[in-house]
């Protein structure tokens, strides 16, 4: 069974804090993605990565950065958390050629107060 593990299920942080969201996969998939999901807006792509040390901006990268030092781990960083970053964050993995779609982690519900 493919596993995509997100480090926290629920997180509460203060405005201005630096926040790290971790995603770890055990399937050796090349591609990893960070989405946020908000009511009425659907899933929006923040950043993605095709390989170690590679990263690409998605549709809404402002206020975020990412790190991929090892193939199995993709971190999303909120440099200075703000209340408008309160959201559900979903990590996903996928192979090249997208044979079977993406596999998602269980999500981290982040609240910034």
């Amino acid at each position, binding site marked *: 069974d493919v596993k995509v593990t997100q480090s926290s299920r629920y997180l509460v942080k203060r405005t201005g804090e630096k926040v790290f969201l971790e995603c770890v996969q055990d399937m050796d998939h090349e591609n990893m*993605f960070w989405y946020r999901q908000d009511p009425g807006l659907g899933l929006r792509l923040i950043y993605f990565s*095709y390989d170690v040390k590679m990263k690409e901006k998605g549709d809404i990268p402002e206020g975020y950065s990412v790190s991929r030092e090892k193939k199995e781990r993709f971190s999303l960083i909120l440099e200075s958390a703000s209340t408008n970053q309160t959201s559900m964050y*979903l990590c*996903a993995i996928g192979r090249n050629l997208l044979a079977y*779609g993406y596999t998602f982690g269980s999500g981290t519900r982040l609240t910034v107060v």
Partner: protein
Amino acid sequence: EDKVVQSPLSLVVHEGDTVTLNCSYEVTNFRSLLWYKQEKKAPTFLFMLTSSGIEKKSGRLSSILDKKELFSILNITATQTGDSAVYLCAVYGNNRLAFGKGNQVVVIP
């Protein structure tokens, strides 16, 4: 910019009804269209469609793609309360998935 539009955004049906969900798209370099089901947590994969006119079926769920008219439908027959979920349509092009806002389906007994 890639666009994926789902309709209706939400609907309420009774158990046993048939549901038809729509997804239209505008994507450069289209490669495939995917449907996911999302209950309380992570979306789970339902179907991937790459060819027009070929129906994919899994139990009471089925889906078909029209690449000429740029849309797909997801049908659920004989609905059950366990079908209550948000159904997400996503289109793969330009090396990424673009998602629609989802169809929220509520099935009442």
